[in-house]
């Protein structure tokens, strides 16, 4: 082999190994799709109202899809508020989250107060569900109260 031929071979080898596009790179992707809000419904002043993870109509549901292990963490609000600043306290217990299959079978109980390691696989969706407790008081005024829970999904090591 002449030196020029050797160079050509080397160039060919480099080009063959070069990724064709960004999509050809190995990239771990995760999708988060909100399915249902956490809905405490119509409450009376002075009462506590708990929504469990088994409350199909009121629990929050988020579909997670992707591959590989991910760490799921929540930023939980302390209260729901109206636009005028009235508040209803919120509390979350260690049993207020769970992981379900897309068909609703419980995979595992999760602690919303901790970072939870979840195994995603084969691009199929699993459901992350969240409950909680709303605590009204006798002075809680009529109105529509809302809050947002932030859901953070990271691949380990990021």
């Amino acid at each position, binding site marked *: 082999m002449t030196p020029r031929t050797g160079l050509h071979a080397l160039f060919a080898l480099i080009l063959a190994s070069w990724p064709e596009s960004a999509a050809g790179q190995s990239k771990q992707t995760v999708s988060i799709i909100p399915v249902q809000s*956490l809905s405490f419904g119509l409450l009376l002043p002075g009462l506590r109202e708990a929504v469990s993870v088994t409350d199909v109509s009121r629990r929050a549901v*988020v579909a997670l899809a992707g591959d590989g292990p991910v760490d799921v963490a929540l930023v939980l609000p302390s209260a729901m508020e109206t636009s005028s600043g009235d508040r209803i306290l919120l509390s979350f217990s260690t049993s207020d989250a769970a992981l379900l299959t897309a068909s609703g079978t419980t995979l595992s109980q999760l602690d919303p107060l901790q970072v939870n390691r979840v195994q995603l696989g084969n691009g199929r969706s699993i459901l992350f569900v969240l409950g909680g407790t709303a605590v009204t008081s006798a002075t809680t005024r*009529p109105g*529509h109260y*809302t809050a947002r829970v932030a859901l953070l*999904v990271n691949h380990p090591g990021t």
Partner: protein
Amino acid sequence: MNRSFRLLAALTVIALPSAASAQAITGSIVATADISTVFSFGAPTGLSFGNITPGSAATGSGYIPLSRNVGVIYSLPDGATTGRLVGPGGNLQPTYTCGVGSTSATIVSAFANCNAAGAQLTLVSPPALLTEYVIFNGSLAAGQTNITPGTYTGTIRVTATPN
């Protein structure tokens, strides 16, 4: 030539794609609740003058509770005939004092009138859910009871409108 290969190898190393990058993403969950307006009358306690000896005065008291967490306007839809009794001897119109109290025994906020149409008392939204009592205290003068014996009955109608 070796130098050319070394240079090319160096370029190859430098140009190699970086390792696969991991991804962090965020989403959000909405939590909602609605606090209802509480506004309802409870069970009334009727006003009874009892058994009256003709020609004797008599009194009686009755009330109805209202639970609310909003303001209220009380009115008397029957106006001048509010709480009129009707019996064998015709009509019998007691004299009433009326109003609202935190207990069923004492009027704290009086109605403007107990026998007139229209709004009689307006109360603001309370700081907390409360139950108050709409109280009617009635009296019959001695001259009024010197009528045909029998049972005389009537209805006191009070309208409460959220304010």
